């Protein structure tokens, strides 16, 4: 496979983590402008773990996801009783605080004779774990997709459990959910926590595949894009946000068909698409149709 294709595929995979993160919160009925914060936290923490503490990659990724999830849970505790624009703005405020904190964050140490570590606004460079361990771009792309598939599989399983249903119920009508015996706050915190961890995992991968991360990598643009991907692709299934990423990065950014006019085309397209399908291409109705068709097809085979 040629290098360009691998890079594009890896990008699609990594951004999918943030899109899934925003999607999980969307399911719980909350609009977050700030999932990029947890992406950033995961990137810095995982990077520090391999570079400064010489941890193995797997452990570093787990730590990044864990810290990001914990941070998201804590932020959730104080913000999740807000809703609508209040919640959206609180998440954005937190993400911007984290981004500026990263601009101020300097933690330099001498590792193997070279000074390295996060260096304020210049970001965190030389995260060379993959190089140092002879992992090729193709192999690292495989790692990204293996983890993405694992996250997706977990989401699919959760969707079939009562917890997953509760998530959708809370998202659709929190009051009705409460009357039906669901502890809305608890469900939302669980959602925020897992959304933070998923974004953190993506961030850890990003830092290692690109060998650097800078505060600019997780500004508001990443957060709002992540939110948009779910709505474009559809909120009926976890594949929706992936479809959104695929359309934007895979089809438009990478094919260079509309070079220089990509956003003019894409922006208008998205607006029109949302008018026709306000919950995205693969929305609940589409998914329910597909399920019914599958069931009928299976019965016909009997």
């Amino acid at each position, binding site marked *: 496979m040629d290098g360009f294709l691998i890079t594009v595929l890896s990008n699609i995979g990594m951004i999918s983590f943030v899109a899934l993160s925003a999607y999980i919160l*969307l399911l719980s009925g909350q*609009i977050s402008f700030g999932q990029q914060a947890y992406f950033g936290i995961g990137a810095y923490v995982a990077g520090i773990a391999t570079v400064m503490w010489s941890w193995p990659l797997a452990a570093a990724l787990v730590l990044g996801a864990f810290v990001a999830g914990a941070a998201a849970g804590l932020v959730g505790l*104080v*913000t999740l009783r*807000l*809703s*609508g*624009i*209040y919640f*959206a*703005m*609180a998440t*954005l*405020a*937190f993400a*911007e*605080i984290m981004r*500026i*904190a990263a*601009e*101020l964050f300097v933690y330099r140490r001498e590792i193997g004779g070279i000074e390295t570590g996060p260096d304020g*606004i210049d970001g965190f460079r030389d995260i060379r774990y993959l190089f140092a361990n002879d992992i090729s771009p193709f192999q690292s792309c495989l790692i990204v997709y293996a983890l993405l598939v694992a996250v997706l599989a977990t989401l699919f399983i959760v969707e079939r459990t009562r917890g997953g249903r509760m998530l959708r119920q809370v998202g659709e009508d929190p*009051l009705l959910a409460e009357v039906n015996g669901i502890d809305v706050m608890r469900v939302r915190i669980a959602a925020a926590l897992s959304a933070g961890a998923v974004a953190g995992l993506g961030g850890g991968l990003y830092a290692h595949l690109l060998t650097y991360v800078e505060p600019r990598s997780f500004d*508001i643009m990443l957060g*709002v894009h992540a*939110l*948009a991907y779910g*709505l*474009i692709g559809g909120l009926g299934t976890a594949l929706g946000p992936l479809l959104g990423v695929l359309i934007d990065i895979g089809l438009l950014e990478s094919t260079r068909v509309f070079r*220089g*006019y*990509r*956003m*003019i085309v*894409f*922006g*208008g*397209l*998205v*607006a*029109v698409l*949302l*008018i026709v399908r*306000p*919950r995205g291409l693969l929305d609940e109705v589409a998914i329910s149709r597909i399920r019914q068709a599958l069931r009928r097809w299976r019965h016909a085979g009997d």
Partner: protein
Amino acid sequence: MVALDLAQNTLDGLMVGSSYALLAIGFTLIFGVMRRLNLAYGPTIMAGVYLGTAAFISLGAPILVVLAIVILGASLVGLYVERLCFRPFGEGARTASMVASFALWMQIEEAAMHLLPRHMNPFPALVASAPLEIGPLMLRADHLVMLAATLLIAGAATYLLARTKLGLAIRAVIDQPRAAAIVGIDVERVMMLTFVLASAIGGIAGFLIAATDAQVTAMIGMWATTKGLVAMMLGGLGSVKGAIAGGLLLGVLEAHAQWFLGPQVRDMVAWGLLFVLLAFWPGGLMGAKALDRTMAVGRRV
């Protein structure tokens, strides 16, 4: 000396804050009528300012013509945003509406970059006189013009809302869209007019800020969206008064933070204040009642 610094910072902050206040008024009007966030508000302003800048650069248009082009451009682009992101969406699709406005943000910014590809462009300066000295304090004349313009527009907006028929219709739609429709108000028309009005106010804010800097950068769209949003939220997104208070507060806070702590911490302080306010005091400075109302709507059984 610290006392003098404090006074000078406060003064500077009030001046810059007045442009934030204008942005917040525009945001508040749109949010009040639509109950949805218009993320393309900043880019709408950018489009107006860029059109004005293009006229200034290529045709040497005088400053008043530039002002007219900016206002007209912002209003037209505002109308476009309303048509594509707000009118076609029902109450049930608020998120879709907001994401559509984000899509147009991207679209408008790219179009603006085609118009003026350079990151920084010159803009006609407002007043080129030396700063006024009031005792030990310095006051830039163009800042004074900005403050005066803000007060004038805020006054006009308040008058419009309180005393005119259109204002009455706008307030009715903000309060009870369905009831307003029943008593014969053309809700769609009111929404459109409010949108255009808010975009024009935003255009003036964009013009003022570009004219005091005598330049305009590609960051102006993002700048207007975030500053306007923060100022509106600080004011509690309930009223024109709240928007002004929020804008001025943000300006003063940033001036002090910049002086004492540097530019990076300045932005952090503004976001930090917003976060703390939302998490622990979500009514904002003046919007407690408005919040009650939105909560009541949300909790209606």
